[in-house]
């Protein structure tokens, strides 16, 4: 879940990292008051979660409170990337000598957080890494062992920063890493971190994201920041189909059968298990298939829940057939999922053998599962058929049926 900039800055401030004397305003009058308090030139920044604020006119400079109010009014009415702003951030226009980058991100490959530092800030760190790799210092940190100043020092020094600068930045990067760990974050970034003429450092912008699943654990922080527990903060609003998927998932505590994303294809997918969803979705597309949806099923859902998901997918306009495929399952039962998807077909008045293009779930209770599939004449495979091959067969089936219909 992403935080708005004003929330991210507040998190940074609470961690003891110097920030500018910014304020968050929901109305032009509030923006004016904040500009008055700041008492000098200010920057008015739209608070939206989409990028491209500058280009869209969502960042403007003002020399007086009146100008700040007028800019705030314009920005508050400006839609950026399909989102209306939550408010505006009013920030003193800082005199900056140099901009740096400080960040901590989750490295999914190493399964560890990595501290990143660069004396080249204000632009995307990916661009700096590609064009000036010697200017980027990195170091993984443990999620278990205590965090040391040394780790931060090493990261910064690897980017070629030394002396007094190094000493001043070390506590900033260490505190950033501490808050990353404390709040279950996947991204904590200060960009730019500005060096002011007096040699001090201040966070000029911040981007933060926490693990979605950590929202329960981080309730206190979210409440303090005024984040509504029901806010999803997705890049786009969930569609009615996706909301219905969430309802299926939350209707029963057993297992997972949800996390649905809508696409416009004709092959409905009931997929999952240990990364299986992503692999299968990609495999279907690689074989020329057009998925109608993405979803995740696993953790041994009840028959009712599996049926609910399958019914939802089968009822989606444009869906001709569904493919039910998973990696080898150990904690999800093949027979239970088989019962669920067949029940969905039957309750909707479909012949399961017709509607289920392919079933490939090997693993726990597969003997019972295969007996059920045989009884209903469903095309299925065991573990000797790879995920890729299963996806190919499902696509072939739906394309074959369409060709047949054309003839």
């Amino acid at each position, binding site marked *: 879940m992403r935080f708005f900039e004003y929330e991210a800055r507040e998190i940074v401030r609470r961690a003891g990292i110097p920030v500018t004397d910014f304020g968050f305003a929901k109305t032009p009058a509030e923006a004016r008051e904040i500009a008055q308090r700041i008492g000098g030139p200010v920057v008015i920044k739209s608070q939206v979660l989409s990028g491209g604020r500058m280009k869209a006119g969502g960042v403007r400079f003002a020399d007086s409170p009146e100008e700040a109010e007028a800019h705030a009014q314009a920005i508050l009415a400006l839609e950026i990337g399909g989102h209306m702003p939550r408010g505006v951030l009013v920030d003193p226009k800082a005199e900056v000598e140099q901009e740096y980058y400080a960040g901590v991100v989750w490295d999914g490959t190493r399964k560890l957080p990595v501290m990143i530092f660069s004396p080249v800030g204000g632009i995307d760190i990916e661009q700096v890494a590609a064009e000036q790799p010697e200017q980027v210092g990195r170091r993984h940190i443990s999620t278990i062992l205590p965090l040391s100043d040394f780790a931060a020092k090493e990261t910064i020094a690897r980017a070629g920063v030394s002396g007094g600068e190094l000493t001043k930045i070390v506590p900033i990067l260490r505190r950033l890493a501490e808050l990353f760990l404390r709040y279950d974050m996947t991204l904590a970034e200060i960009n730019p971190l500005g060096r002011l003429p007096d040699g001090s450092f201040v966070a000029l912008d911040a981007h933060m994201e926490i693990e979605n699943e950590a929202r329960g654990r981080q309730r206190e922080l979210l409440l303090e920041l005024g984040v509504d527990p029901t806010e999803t903060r997705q890049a786009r609003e969930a569609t009615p189909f996706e909301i219905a998927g969430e309802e299926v998932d939350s209707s029963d505590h057993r297992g997972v059968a949800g996390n649905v994303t809508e696409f416009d294809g004709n092959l409905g997918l009931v997929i999952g298990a240990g990364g299986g969803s992503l692999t299968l979705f990609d495999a279907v597309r690689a074989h020329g298939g057009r998925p109608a949806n993405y979803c995740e099923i696993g953790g041994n859902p*009840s*028959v*009712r829940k599996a049926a609910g998901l399958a019914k939802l997918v089968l009822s989606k306009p444009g869906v001709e057939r569904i493919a039910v495929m998973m990696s080898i399952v150990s904690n999800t*039962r093949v*027979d*239970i999922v088989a*019962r669920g998807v*067949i*029940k969905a077909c*039957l309750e909707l008045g479909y012949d399961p053998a017709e509607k289920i293009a392919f079933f490939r779930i090997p693993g726990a209770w597969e003997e*019972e599962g295969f*007996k*059920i599939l045989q*009884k*209903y004449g469903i095309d299925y495979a065991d573990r000797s058929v790879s995920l890729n091959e299963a996806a190919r067969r499902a696509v072939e089936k739906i394309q074959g049926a369409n060709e047949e219909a054309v003839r």
Partner: protein
Amino acid sequence: MRVDGTFIAVEVSEQAAADQELARRLAEVCPVDIFRLRTAAAESGGSADALEIVAENVDECVLCRLCLDTAPAGAVKVIKLYDNEALLA
């Protein structure tokens, strides 16, 4: 008493169904709530509990055998309708 789902059927002998203590234990052991105690108000003035097989839960049966282990031999049958009515043993 027998209730059929799409995949599973559950049958309890009349004698077992009338045993209130057994009914209570069946309701307790089944992990997917296929057995329920219903106060038989009309028949017994609200004093006795009758065993009910919950039709909407029958297909949730996880074939765990806990009901078979709880009841005297043959008193409860779990039938796999997808496997030529094979009995769960």
